[in-house]
């Protein structure tokens, strides 16, 4: 099994960061992760959507913090010092997602990833890019492109 993965890594393997959210495990492609940092008290934004927790200062840059749990339709997190912010760079934007904990860094072969089953939930269709099965663990691969607090959501709220 390990041999198989190492072999595969050379051509079409993906490195993934796995994290926990509301007792579920999710993962994202590591290439868009810029850093992982502890929870910092955020500054609230007026009239923002409920999944936008606010903004934090990341070495002089204003970075919005998204409650991924709320974004996915799960119960919103109540952040504590043990929560973690994953900072992503998606296109030109730098965005932080608050998650319960980062659990693992994994390597998955392309054929470990299956397309999202048709579950009928719009949120699942929008944000879950596929289902990854590695070492008998199954988790949703989050597609970051669509999860951004894009202009639409921010403007609609204003």
């Amino acid at each position: 099994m390990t041999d198989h993965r190492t072999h595969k890594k050379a051509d079409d393997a993906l490195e993934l960061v796995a994290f926990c959210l509301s007792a579920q495990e999710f993962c994202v492609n590591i290439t868009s992760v810029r850093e992982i940092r502890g929870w910092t008290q955020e500054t609230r934004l007026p009239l923002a959507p409920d999944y936008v927790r606010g903004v934090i200062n990341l070495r002089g840059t204003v970075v919005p913090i998204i409650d991924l749990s709320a974004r996915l339709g799960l119960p919103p997190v109540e952040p504590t010092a043990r929560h973690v912010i994953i900072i992503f760079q998606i296109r030109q934007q730098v965005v932080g997602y608050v998650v319960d904990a980062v659990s693992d860094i994994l390597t998955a072969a392309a054929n470990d990833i299956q397309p999202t089953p048709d579950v009928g939930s719009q949120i699942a269709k929008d944000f879950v890019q596929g289902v990854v099965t590695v070492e008998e663990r199954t988790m949703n691969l989050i597609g970051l492109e669509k999860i951004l607090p894009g202009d639409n959501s921010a403007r609609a709220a204003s």
Partner: protein
Amino acid sequence: MDEIQTTFFQECEDLLEELESGLVQMEKGDRDSETVNSVFRAVHSIKGGAGAFGMESLVNFAHIFETTLDLIRSNNLDTTSDILTLLLRSADALSDLIAAARDETECNQDFIAAVASELTSLSARSHKAIDKDGGELGLDFVPVPVDLGADLDVHSDALNGDGLSATTFIITFQPEKALYDSANEPLLLLRRLSELGEATITCDASALPDLEAIDPEEAYLRWTIHLRTDKEEEDIREVFEFVDGLCHLEITREADPDVTIGDDPLGEDSAVSDLDKLLGARAPSLADHKGPKGIANPAASSTQGANQPNKKLGAIGAGASEATIRVKLERIDRLVNLVGELVINQAMVTQGAVNAGIGRDEGFEQELDGLKQLTREIQESVMAIRAQPIKSLFQRMSRIVREVQATTDKKVKLATEGEATEIDKTVIERLADPLTHMIRNAIDHGLETPEIRRGAGKSEEGVVSLTAAHRSGRVLITVADDGAGINRPRVFEKAVEKGLIAKDAQLTDSEIDNLIFSPGFSTAKEVSDLSGRGVGMDVVKSAIQSVGGKVSISSRPGAGSVFSISLPLTLAVLDGMVTDIVGQTLVVPLTAIVETLRPSQAQIHKIGVGGMTIAVRGEHIPLIDVGQLMGFRRQPADLESSVVVLIESDDHARVALVLDNIQDQRQVVIKSLEENYGQVAGVAAATILGDGRIALILDVDDVIRRAVAASSDSPPLALTG
């Protein structure tokens, strides 16, 4: 190579600016030869650079342009207003060609060709008049002595009897070896000298050894020139400017100017023939001297007059104007960012000292204050680097005026004031489009046709004035015209037509005027070529708002309209009042704050459901609970323990903000929210506080607008999110 080319284009920008400001000076009646020279030099330098990069069309046009300017420079062409207009258009064409060469695009060939042919015919006409005058300085060396004679004759003829205010200078000129070594040619100097007036040149060849003893590289000759001219001594010195230090030069004013008039004690013929001999003797040595070094170049003849001023540009540039260096913008931006960090860090240190209980130590407190002061000064100095005079922008506008004028039958004059006003470079760049549009509008919609103007007892020529000035920490730019003013009935009608207002709406004059900023509003009856490009004043307004500016209009029927643009000096820092609201920190821009007060129950009046006003010196001002407006809380604030901050927008609308507490006043660094997130209602930007946390900066205008909108549709005061 690319880098050199980039530098060339950067220089071109500066040169174009110089060219244009010189022409504008000339248009204002400046006949100073230095102004003409600077214009000529600018074009010539562009030509030279373009030649080096093989930009043919640019070189060709610059050459034609330069030829005309040369005629003006040598006083062979009068700068009438028609000619100046042509010159200004030529400058536009040159700028187009440069832009085309830089961006590798095509430019309007018809325009270029039209201007070029006008210039050519102008030069041709003037050339005819001065053909004999040595306009073409044939510099083949061999026939030179003869040429010189002819030149001098022509000049003497031309200038005889023309010497009313003339003085006679006695000039002794003795070249040193170094002068010849650096490929200077005394003949050219003498010829230029003789162009200044009536010259009698004698050569002292007494130092010349026998032929066999001659060292061809050595300098033996000395000239004495009696020059009768109305020019000043500086003009004469200017001729020798490039051989300064390479020769012995003495210029004395002859006591009695009459001595040499009409009676040449030495005899011109003898002088010329002396010269002839001597130059003849000198010729082979010069040829030897120049030839092998490859300096003698027939092409030099045509640019002779031009190369020298070019060198002079360096000399004068270093002396007359302040020294400047060219720095990449990104380096400055990096510095600006770093200083921003420094300001935040300084705030953190101060905060930390207070937290650690050492902030009270007197000595330490002083040091902290010193640090704060220094930080602020560094910040201001860095901002000053980014600041640029608004002149370049105004110059672009004068081109717009010329273009618009050419396509309408209106007569327009652009008057500018306060060109030296400095403002952030980014603001200047982003102001170009809205300002262009406003200028177009002012001419197209504002000014009347000459007939109507005459009928109204105004001068046929309309005036569009553009001014800039510093006003209480902001820059105020106005665009004014002396046209018909806003046609209020027409605007009203149109607004009703477009469904912007109700048919029976009662609006004040100023409200009607401001309707033109509404989206989708355009009053021109026919969409004209100029301003009706589908861009309305609302776009102008939002473009100005995007750089933190405000725009307003005032108009008087028959007397014209004034658009005022108020801009922040910089986009990087802001003086703000740091306040608390529901556990959040909010910064209110200091410029908007009128006063702060603790409300008493007696001042508060409830209006309807949730609506409240506060009476301040008899005026009832809407009271806004910021906590509710921002969605931070549902319960109304406890007014007993609140503070009220009275703010005013640019159009003088006032509201009173209810806040929990006021912490401090300080300078904050503006951080963009839009970069990583997007626009946020009621928030202009963010900043970073001393404790490293982010605070939001209130968008005063947006809050006031929302408050007014909210109070007009009852009952909700809070905006739902």
